[in-house]
């Protein structure tokens, strides 16, 4: 899932400067799970903003809405009545949601209330760790199910660097060394042989480096004719 954290309250208040009728928009998906932008967080943030508005005499009108998934037009379309009359939307969904709202409502400024961070998982309640590097060319089968691109601070592909000690990365004692984890995993799987072969330089084209990525599922793409037949907009 996508993991993010709300921006500090002060920063959000600065970003909202100059606006008055504000819609705080959350999402029930990833950001709800990482306790950053779900319905509950929308409620708390909205109340905090009202408190700030009252204390600072800003005269803000804060409204609230939470959608199922803020990245999908079907759901973002439904909040049109809530957008009516607003001069800003403070989105606490991930960056995708904030951009979807802006695209659908180009006349109302979409502002980010959340810093989107990474693709990861909750490893225990309240703790979320980055897991997938989104490189577009997965090699988990070679590394015992552990992503070397993002769990290794240097994205090494041929084993740990000289800074790996006691299972920790050189960047800090709280960071596990991914290659130690890969080694232990392959050992458990009886596949240490996978570490003998040298992996050649990676093709980064399918990663972020290659430019904004577009993936097409032709079986789902609709032609103009199909659109008309279906009565789709």
């Amino acid at each position: 899932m996508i993991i993010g954290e709300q921006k500090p309250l002060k920063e959000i208040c600065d970003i909202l400067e100059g606006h008055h009728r504000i819609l705080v928009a959350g999402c029930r998906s990833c950001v709800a799970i990482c306790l950053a932008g779900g319905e509950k967080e929308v409620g708390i943030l909205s109340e905090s903003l009202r408190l700030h508005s009252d204390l600072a005499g800003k005269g803000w009108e804060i409204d609230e809405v939470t959608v199922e998934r803020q990245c999908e037009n079907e759901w973002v379309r439904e909040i049109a009545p809530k957008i009516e009359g607003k001069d800003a939307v403070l989105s606490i969904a991930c960056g995708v949601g904030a951009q979807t709202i802006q695209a659908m409502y180009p006349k109302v400024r979409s502002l980010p209330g959340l810093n989107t961070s990474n693709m990861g998982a909750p490893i225990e309640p309240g703790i979320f760790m980055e897991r997938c590097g989104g490189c577009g060319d997965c090699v988990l089968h070679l590394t015992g199910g552990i992503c070397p691109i993002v769990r290794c601070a240097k994205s090494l592909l041929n084993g740990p660097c000289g800074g790996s000690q006691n299972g920790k990365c050189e960047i800090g004692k709280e960071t596990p060394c991914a290659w130690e984890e890969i080694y232990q995993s392959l050992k458990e799987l009886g596949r240490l042989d996978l570490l003998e072969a040298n992996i050649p330089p990676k093709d980064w084209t399918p990663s972020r480096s290659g430019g904004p990525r577009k993936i097409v599922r032709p079986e789902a793409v609709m032609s103009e004719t199909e659109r008309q037949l279906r009565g789709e907009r």
Partner: protein
Amino acid sequence: MKADSNLERILTSGKFAVTAEIGPPRSASADLVRKKAEEMKGSADAFNLTDNQTAMSRMSSIACAVVLMQQGLEPVVQMTCRDRNRIAMQSDVLGASALGVLDILCLSGDHQSFGNMKEAKNVYDVDSIQELMILRKMRDEGKLWNGDELDVAPKLFLGAAANPFADPFEFRVTRLGKKAAAGADFVQTQSIYDMERFEKWMGLVRARGLHERVHILAGVMPLKSHKVALYMKNKVSGMIVPDAIVERMRNAKDPKEEGVLICVEQIDHLKSIEGVHGVHIMAVNWEEIVPRIVSEAGLTPRNRY
């Protein structure tokens, strides 16, 4: 001969080699490099120039290498993967080679969070093993990684780093094997203080026959003070400093003398280990002590071979 460098000739002939390290200055003037070169001339067969060590911008390794060559010393250019992608890497190699550089050491490079510009974006397009593969292809096939032909192929003697003190221990010998397979002609190890662990590693290295595929230079670093010893022990990832050594430094009447003594003792012992083909002296912030250490270890004179 791959590059016919001084270092290569000495190692190939079976003589015990000595390399030392010089840290480039944070300056647009190469005066300090010339000064250190003069001080250290004749004390080693080749001199490593570090590459933005600990992720702090310093005069580039290649630029310093040119200065060294002007003074008659042989440089080993260190080239990390942190600050350059494969395009810049191959470009730097062509340039370095054109300027006379023969020895290049491939390494991953300290993470930028170590340095004074932590906000920088790192590169790590390739890792050190892939770097070896790329450089070897340039040398042996006369081609860039994508297959484009080079008008003139670089002559290179390729080095890599090895760390018997990092984890997982069992994998460290495999990693040396991978570097040998990728093209490493020689390796320099991380500074040795835990001789027992180093001997254990060498045993595994010999069992795999790796000591005959790649020249191993054992790394040593003279300790300047008790404080430095503690710092190395506690703050540097991938280094092991046994308590006995820390204690010696703590109790020493003259810590610097003790540091030199320990270093010379280590070198004496390392000379006797089968598979160790030389020593790499990293006198960080203390380069001027190298000539004395080499002399007391009975390794002078260092004539060009």
